[in-house]
């Protein structure tokens, strides 16, 4: 069966709409009748991705491809790129600014959480060009 696709534009201006795509996606997955733990894992991965794009990349876009047996989330931005992926994957490592930390974000759990809650996380990134994350959640 061809994939069902949901597209979300992630507004990078401020945090006021951050998390909306995650909630919207969750509603749709619920309607599709996916098991609740699958929905929750997708929702966490998407939320972390959204926040990352707002903090680091001035927004971006998300594409969710839904198959009967897996959900593929692709997050793409034209931000600064990740200079050291290995470091960024470490829990607690963050390059977020003081201001972002004061807002309660930037705990350095973004990428680690995305990895933890998905079956696979693929990172394509180029400094100064942007980042593309592909996550797969198996059903």
């Amino acid at each position, binding site marked *: *069966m061809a994939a*069902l696709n949901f597209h979300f534009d992630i507004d990078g201006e401020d945090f006021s709409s951050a*998390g909306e795509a*995650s*909630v919207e996606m*969750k*509603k*749709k997955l*619920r*309607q*599709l*009748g*996916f098991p*609740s*733990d699958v*929905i*929750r894992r997708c*929702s*966490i991965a998407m*939320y972390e991705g959204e926040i990352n794009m707002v903090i680091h990349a001035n927004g971006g876009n998300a594409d969710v491809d*839904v198959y*009967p047996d897996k959900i593929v989330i692709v997050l793409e931005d034209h931000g600064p790129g990740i200079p050291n992926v290995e470091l960024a994957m470490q829990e607690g490592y963050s390059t977020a600014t003081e201001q972002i930390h004061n807002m309660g974000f930037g705990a350095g759990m973004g990428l680690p*959480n995305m990895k933890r809650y998905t079956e696979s996380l693929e990172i394509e990134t180029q400094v100064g060009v942007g980042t593309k994350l592909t996550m797969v959640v198996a059903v």
Partner: protein
Amino acid sequence: MTDNFLHSVSLDAERCIGCTSCLRQCPTEAIRIRDGHAVIRTIFCIDCGRCVRVCPHRAKRAIFDKLSDIDPKYKFRIALPAPALYGQFDELTDIGCLLESMMELGFDEVYEVARAAEIISECTRRYMRKPGIPRPVISSACPAIVRLIRLRFPELCDNVLPILPPVEYASRIAKARVLKNHPELTKDDICTVFISPCPAKSSYAKNGLSQTRSSIDYVVSIAEVYMKLSGKVKKPHPGMLRSRAGIAGVKWASSGGEAEGLFDDRYLAADDMDNAIQVLDAIENKRFPHLEFVELNACPGGCVGGAATVENPYIAKARLLSFRHGLPHNRNYLDVKDQGPDYVPPDAVLDAPINDYIPTYSLSEDRFEAMRMMMEIDELHAKLPRIDCGSCGAPTCRAFAEDVVKGEATMEDCVVLLRRRLHEKQEGGAKE
């Protein structure tokens, strides 16, 4: 899909003119306008009562028992007033005056829910000390919230506090006490009558909470008791009935009161359905690693904002504050001296944990079919005006597209599209 839930919000079709006021307000999109009247799709309804509050024609009704419905076979009637009741009366200076006045409505005893609330707070503090429990713990006191979680947040069912709501504990212990003090009575002689701020608690008495059955026999609205007692509340006099609750119990009437009773600042208290839903979405995304307790109330301001109250919730809250003077913080305690610090007496625990998810929102049980339907919904939605005007009878264009795909509405029900087509026809005709 049905789950045999008995609702306490209903529609008076004669009063309803199909105005759409309630349509957009319903937090679970349970309402549609069909044939000029609102229709409640019961599987989605959580009895929060918001439609009752917003209906300008008073066509949405909360169903309660009347005091006159109480069966004469009951030899002993116990009133269980919610603490929100105390905030309704202008002339009230002492809670005891209200309790004494209530006795004249035909009750043999008044047992304050606020007293049970203090014990439930103590049980909750003890439960929170248990290692390994799912955190944050979410309050089980608001039945509309618990039902919302069961319908929409299955992953959070385990976080719901497995302890009785105060009104249930009040009903159970009040009955047990009367049985002990009056050996001539049997349990069939005694009834409890909850004086409730909201329809959700009326539904609770009928349905229980998940697997837990309620021992409450009747649920009467605060509004009815207010009507009967307003202007007739007694003045203080020597030897009068006294309130046996403290500040902690009375506080439960407004948002944050329950959470404050846990003596731990790592809590979140939110009221009104939209806020509650946002908080639950955030908790589901594990966004609050340090949060210990979450108190959610479906009504604005907490129970004082219930659809069966009379007074504005903030005025009621201010009145409740005025009663605090001279009250001790707590007056009701558990008797569990020889037990460990995380011991919770079994009679305060839910009969079964909340674990039965009701997947109300799936389009189809077959995932392939659900995916096909969603593709069709997306296609239809793209053609709709997306102004969410409600004229078709659905709360949003998206919900309308779903209704069309489910066969519950047709595209012709969209008046905006119909008008557009009419215009195109006319313009086409003019050109010819």
